[in-house]
């Protein structure tokens, strides 16, 4: 019976899994009859948008669903290398049996590498604990093995790293620590719950590489939860598409991407693929006049935080131009200074130096960096902002009508019945029902809230809008709708956009020109086609090649360009 395990052997067989959350409002069927198999050496990706139940599915396997979640029915049979098997669904969540599976046979890594590790215990302490618990190692042996594990996940100076605390590591390094901890007992299966979502693309690529390498080396089965179709295409063998707790479609990755049967899957793939090319609206447009004088010209802008020896140069000598009717994309990873840069354009922060020349409709030029209070107030009517967080940027204590009407009211443009009419018109313009005017933001979905934010931005008939990660918080299926809306408004109102994003897909869809930011500096500027297809700067090359593409036939991030700047 004890044949050596080989790739393709089923490790976990889940059938008709049902997990419910009993709440005050009634029962939420988070997982509703889900079946799948995970095999040795293979990667199963569970993909879905927020609220699809993918994460609860993963947690159900180890019976670590947060209260009040409860596994109602179904079976989850774990096949062991020695030929025996056990149905995890029948085990009590606190039983010794399930505890001996957790961390030893099935290990798990999580999304938030910061909060998923204890802040007051050393890295070594947290890894050694698993070794001592499951393998009964003594302190010395556990420590030696921990150092070895840290070396395996490529953490520099593992001898010293073992005694350090998690807050002394960067996000990517923390996720490596998590992986080392998961691998400690050579599990037969690894569950990864959105392990790269909180990371930048280049770090994501490294972590995906690492998981792949370790999987090949140890022959683990991997269950990978993600919302990113690019990641799926890059790493999956099999795919499970979930929506509202149900499986919409499952099959080999090739089939899901190139011959999807289910409508939801097709919609999902479709909206991802749309973001792989230029928007149709843009294709129909006349080319932007190159000779027109720029509406915004940023010269040598500097914005430093902190003082003395502890200065962060968030924006470091940045120069840009925005032409009338143009969309300028600013792309970069976290810490590149792109958001600070955007906020400086409206003087949310006071820049330390440089100039932002804004050309008004009558041809006069105002430097926003040195503008006085009155001028600035006037300019802020012409340059507006759309925020990233559709929850945080709307005051929860004001009605939609009050939020959209606020700029009109405080600038003395409209009040009373006229204000009501203007608000109704604006709501219609961004695709919201004017009858919803008395509702509060909590009554709206993420996409609708972002429309409210757009209505507020266009209320003053601005000439330039700075959009800061305007679609990042939205599910992929509504992302392109939002971008289309913004482009339609651009045509109607003759707007220029400064579009800040970390997502190159969104940039390619939306922008005419792109500036790539890295550590506070612009490393490359050019037309979107030029930057995306023939980047010149090494950082841009590295960034672009690290982005997973939604095409399983064209897996490239393992062979990506690496930038050591």
């Amino acid at each position, binding site marked *: 019976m004890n044949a050596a395990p080989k790739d393709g052997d089923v490790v976990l067989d889940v059938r008709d899994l049902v997990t419910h959350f009993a709440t005050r409002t009634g029962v939420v069927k988070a997982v509703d009859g889900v079946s799948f198999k995970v095999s040795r050496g293979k990667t199963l990706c569970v993909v879905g948008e927020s609220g699809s139940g993918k994460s609860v599915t993963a947690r159900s396997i180890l019976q*670590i669903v947060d209260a009040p979640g409860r596994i109602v029915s179904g079976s989850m049979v774990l096949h062991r290398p020695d030929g025996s098997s056990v149905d995890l669904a029948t085990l009590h969540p606190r039983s010794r049996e399930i*505890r001996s599976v957790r961390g030893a046979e099935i290990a798990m890594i999580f999304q938030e590498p910061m909060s*998923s590790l204890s*802040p*007051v215990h050393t890295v070594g302490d947290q890894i050694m604990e*698993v070794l001592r618990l499951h393998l009964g190692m003594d302190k010395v042996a556990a420590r030696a093995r921990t150092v070895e594990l840290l070396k395996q996940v490529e953490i520099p100076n593992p001898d010293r790293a073992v005694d350090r605390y998690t807050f002394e590591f960067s996000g990517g390094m923390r996720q490596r620590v998590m992986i080392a*901890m998961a691998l400690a007992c050579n599990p037969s299966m690894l569950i990864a719950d959105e392990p790269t979502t909180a990371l930048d693309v280049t770090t994501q690529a490294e972590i995906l590489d690492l998981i792949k390498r370790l999987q090949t080396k140890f022959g683990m089965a991997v269950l990978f939860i993600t919302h990113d179709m690019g990641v799926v295409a890059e790493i999956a063998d099999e795919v499970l598409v979930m929506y509202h707790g149900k499986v919409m479609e499952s099959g080999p990755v090739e089939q899901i991407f190139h011959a999807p049967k289910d409508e939801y899957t097709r919609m999902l793939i479709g909206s991802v693929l749309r973001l792989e090319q230029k928007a149709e609206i843009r294709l129909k447009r006349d080319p932007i006049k190159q000779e027109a004088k720029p509406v915004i010209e940023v010269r040598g802008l500097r914005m430093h935080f902190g003082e003395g020896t502890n200065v962060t140069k968030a924006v470091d000598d940045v120069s840009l131009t925005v032409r009338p009717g143009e969309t300028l994309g600013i792309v970069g990873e976290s810490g590149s200074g792109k958001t600070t840069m955007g906020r400086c354009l409206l003087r949310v922060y006071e820049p330390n130096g440089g100039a932002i020349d804004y050309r008004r409709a009558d041809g006069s030029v105002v430097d926003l960096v040195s503008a006085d209070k009155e001028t600035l107030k006037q300019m802020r009517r012409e340059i507006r902002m759309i925020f990233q967080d559709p929850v945080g940027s709307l005051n929860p204590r004001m009605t939609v009508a009050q939020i959209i009407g606020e700029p009109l009211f405080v600038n003395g443009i409209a009040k009373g019945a006229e204000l009501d009419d203007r608000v109704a018109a604006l709501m219609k313009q961004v695709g919201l029902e004017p009858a919803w005017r008395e509702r509060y933001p909590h009554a709206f979905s993420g996409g609708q809230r972002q429309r409210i934010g757009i209505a507020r931005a266009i209320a003053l008939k601005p000439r330039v809008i700075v959009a800061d990660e305007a679609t990042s918080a939205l599910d992929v299926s509504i992302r392109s709708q939002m971008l289309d809306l913004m482009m339609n408004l651009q045509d109607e109102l003759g707007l220029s956009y400064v579009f800040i994003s970390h997502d190159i897909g969104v940039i390619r869809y939306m922008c005419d020109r792109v500036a790539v930011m890295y550590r506070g500096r612009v490393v490359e500027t050019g037309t979107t086609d030029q930057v995306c297809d023939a980047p010149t700067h090494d950082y841009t090359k590295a960034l672009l090649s690290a982005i997973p593409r939604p095409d399983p036939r064209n897996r490239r991030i393992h062979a990506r360009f690496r930038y050591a700047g």
Partner: protein
Amino acid sequence: MLRFIVLRLIWMVPSLVAVSFLAFVLIQLPPGDYVTTYIATLAASNEVVDQNTAADLRARFGLDQPMAVQYFKWITGILLEGNFGLSFEWQQPVSELIWERMALTLVLTVSTLIVTWGIAMPIGVFSAVKKYSFGDYVATFFSFLGLAIPSFLLALVLMYIAAVQLGQEVGGLFSERFVNAPWSFAKVVDLIAHLWVPVIILAVSGTASLIRVMRANMLDELNKPYVTTARAKGLSEFALLVKYPLRVALNPFISTIAWLLPNLVSGSIIVAIVLSLPTAGPMLLQSLMSQDMYLAGAFVLLICALTLIGSLVSDILLALVDPRIRLE
């Protein structure tokens, strides 16, 4: 770490100066001074003190000098010679009167602190882990009750029960034969035998609020992702509870010393008055009533210094247990 402690110690200096000044101002506030009171007392027994005698008295006690000079003399005396001045009422140096009482106050508050922690921590953890259970509701109810009972009332009720129901006198910290006896092992044992009554009375309200604090801390931590991580490792519920959320929740708990100690000291003063304990409370009240300024000033100064040192200790302890502060 050493840098942190040194910095924190330096920070103590302005606080202590402020406290000493505050103590001195408080004592100077009442209209008139000790001599006025003294004359009034004599007048009540039909003795008349003429202006010259009053002026002589004032000059002897230095009361005729400007306030800044008086303060300076007072504070340098304390710092250089440990001389807190003279108690007008007792006609004795203040330093002879206060130290034993301050020491007993310290013993009382520190034992109360330990008892408070000892009771509050397990109940708070239990309350959080078994949230909304019967036990949680009972603990919650009693902590609200404990918060609502003023400590002097509790002392009175205990005294009433002891006197009427049990026919015993509660009060004091020593049996009669030890009150004036020199310190000995037997006296310490006797102290411990008496100490528990005021300790329990004082611990009630502190325990009540600490249970709330511990419960809230634990509830915050129990939902953190690192708890799920620990669970996914295969740790038993009890082991992971003790090692992770409890450990992290302890940090804000340690910082409770900073506000618990002032509260305990405040409470101990009132309770000591009701139970007539030989601690700082009754003598402070008495000295304030008779405007015995140097005595009252010494008490206010030392009591405030005690709580300031308490918050210093809590900060250092916190830095010791929390690597995030220690390694900053």
